[in-house]
């Protein structure tokens, strides 16, 4: 049964923001389809429904292009989590988060969770070139063999200043982890939140690679776990019938479903 006739009502909303070309669509694609493939720059925004245990999480993959800026606040309305994405090899993409995207989150929930994600870590970091999860190694290997597989070890010592990027040679990392953490601090201040009362920067700043899968599952699963309270609260308000839960559980993603069903 494809989408089925049954309406799946989303319990919670997660929005991915960030400049064009940083890899938002690729990250989501890696997470949902377990693949890295060529993308086309997103138009407007794309809405996905992800089953997380008994819950339905809606994810908005937005377009980073300036052209679609006007839609951003609509996508963010009522969001429980926002993933602010930049490209570790592009300083400007981090700056854009603050200049262009942060204000869009004004329409998000008050208790909205923010994650800062530096993508394309595979270009700068040898350890991000190794597929994360042992059970997915073979699959990833097959896909990324030419680009990464054999080169990982031999190219590690390449000086980070090397500009070549196409053949798996390291690229200069323009944005460090500490830059992202500093931005996280500024976001909390912008939101008027106490640093102690909020989630720590170490936990909410990720470096990922949609290409190899590095940290991708961890990113989404951490966020999903963190929005659970928000889901439960919403469910209580709406008094959802338990039959829907059961059905959703059955159709849900078994492996990761277990970790979430608590």
């Amino acid at each position: 049964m494809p989408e089925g006739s049954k309406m799946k009502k989303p319990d919670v909303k997660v929005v991915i923001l960030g400049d064009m070309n940083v890899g938002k669509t690729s990250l989501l694609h890696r997470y949902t389809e377990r693949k890295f493939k060529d993308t086309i720059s997103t138009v407007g925004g794309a809405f996905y429904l992800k089953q997380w245990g008994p819950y339905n999480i809606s994810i908005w993959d937005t377009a980073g292009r300036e052209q679609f800026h006007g839609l951003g606040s609509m996508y963010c309305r009522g969001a429980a989590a926002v993933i602010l994405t930049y490209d570790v090899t592009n300083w400007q993409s981090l700056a854009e988060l603050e200049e262009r995207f942060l204000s869009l989150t004004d329409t998000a929930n008050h208790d909205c969770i923010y994650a800062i994600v530096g993508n394309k870590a595979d270009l700068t970091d040898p350890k991000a070139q190794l597929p994360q999860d042992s059970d997915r190694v073979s699959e990833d290997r097959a896909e990324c063999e030419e680009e990464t597989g054999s080169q990982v070890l031999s190219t590690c010592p390449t000086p980070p200043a090397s500009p070549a990027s196409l053949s798996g040679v390291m690229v200069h990392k323009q944005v460090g982890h500490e830059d992202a953490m500093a931005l996280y601090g500024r976001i909390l201040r912008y939101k008027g939140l106490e640093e102690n009362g909020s989630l720590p920067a170490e936990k909410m700043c990720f470096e990922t690679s949609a290409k190899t899968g590095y940290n991708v599952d961890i990113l989404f699963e951490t966020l999903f776990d963190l929005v659970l309270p928000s889901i439960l609260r919403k469910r209580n308000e709406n008094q959802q019938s338990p039959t829907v839960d059961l059905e959703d559980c059955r159709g849900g993603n078994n492996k990761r479903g277990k970790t979430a069903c608590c």
Partner: protein
Amino acid sequence: MESENQPRGEAEGVKIHDPPSESSIPAADTLATSLSLLGNHMFPEHANPVEINDNTIVNKEAPAESVLSDAPAGEQSLDAEPQVNQVKELETEESGIFECQNSMYTQPAGGVTEEADMSNGQDDSGEFVVTMLARGKLEEQGVGVKGRSSPLLETGTLEAPAFLSHRDEDVTAESWRQHRKHVFVLSEAGKPIYSRYGSEEALSSTMGVMMALVSFVQSGDNIIRSVYSEEHTVVFLQKGPLVLVCVSSSRQSEQQLRGELLYVYYQIISMLTQASIARIFEHKKNYDLRRLLAGSEKILDGLLNLVDSDPSFLLAAVHCLPLASSLRDSLSQILQKAITPNLVFSILIAKNQLLTIVQEKTVIEDARLEPADVHLLLNLIGASSAFQAGEIWTPICLPLFNPDCYFYAYISYLDPPECTVCLLLLSTDKEAFYAVAECKRRIEEAMVAQNSLSLIAKAQSYSVSQVGVSDLRHFMYKPFDVPDNYRQLTQFTSPEMEAPYSSEEEKMRLLDLYRYMHSRIHSTSRPLKLIYHVAERETLLAWVTSKFELYTCFSPLVTKACAITAITKLLRWIKKEEDRLFIRYPPKYSTTPNPSKSSRGGKSDQQDSTDNGFLSLL
């Protein structure tokens, strides 16, 4: 007049055909220099500026006819007598559309052309509408005898696989120049905006030269329209602050190339709206529009590939998937029932062809969806298909409907993971995503209940063999202005391209033949009603009446008599099948069931000044 405007391929130098102002004379030098600069880059085979001047014709006014038409050799007169009866039959079939008068147009360069000529005023007997048909005299051309390599024998350059980016191409390489059709978009200030091949940056000097050309001619109160060289046709189109340039070796007519540039312009408008482009350049003349268009290159690339490979663009008509009318009606009803305020169009697409379109009542009253707008929508869907599982919500402007406003398009596939059946819902309300997505669920539900998806999956384009005419290989039929079709989307029908047109090269070759026939039929100087064209590997017949436009392709051995009988049969077959081949009665719905508290008020409340507002139409 004609002979003056018509490039004959002789050495004519840089010639300005329409010099109403004196400035053209002293400035000719500059123009020649610009041209040779352009030539150095685009056509290095003529790197010598003198040579370029010798072979280049600058046309500042619409040229009489394309270069294509300058090959009269091999055109033959026909023994027409036997056809009279069949033609009569045709006429009766089409119930007296023609006031026939005979005219014979003899071309000086040997060989006799006979064709239906409807250009008035060239001849004192210029009252004729269709001449040939009355006497059964048809134009015949042997292409093979042409003086220079025939455009019709040229095979289309195969495009590289879609994923291979042309952006990284070396613009100094020979392979770059070899592309069959280059398209450039620049701003009036000469800033590069788009190039089909190679990066805009690498081409900025070339584009600068192009802009120099444009503004040079402008300074003399003229508009540059085209430049002809031996190998290439360069066509210019200025739209507001944008200048579009096509450099083509495809041998298409200038008119056709300009039409294609217009599609490119419309696609840009569909992303940004005309009003905002105007506003941007008013503020800042040398604004870099790539800031806003960055990321859209693939959409423009995709459009140009479609323009080259899909005759819908040439015919300015929409191709719909043949479907039993009962099934089409039931699909329309499903769409008609799943509505929400501010929803204005519901469109169902399968295999990139239309299944049905349903419109909001108020909208259809004063406007209809233009084929070009549908083409842009279909291209957008194609270009956003990379990640098909999601539901897309994006602003889009339909330039022919209203070039200054956005619709919000909901795009979703109904049959994941195959993703062949696509639902497109257009709303005027930016915030309506969830309401519109809910319509999709209802449509999905109804389609499951009626098993529509598996019925749609069985639908497919038809084979020409179903027509039952042995020599007929392919055709394109576009009806217009018949009562049923009035105020309806212009459509055309065409069978699958089958052997011998199964390879990409052969498909392109047939399309090129059709383009040639089309350019003759629609020639501005000497439009034709009917052309019978004997090519080397096939015989084509194109015929335009007040009711339809028809292009047919036959095996080369067909006789004229057979071709005409075949067309009679074909027209009968189409008539019989039209309920299946076309969307006949597009249903309407009303999303404002209660006019007193209609969407009118709601809409203006939601109007958002940040992105040009919404349709102020309802």
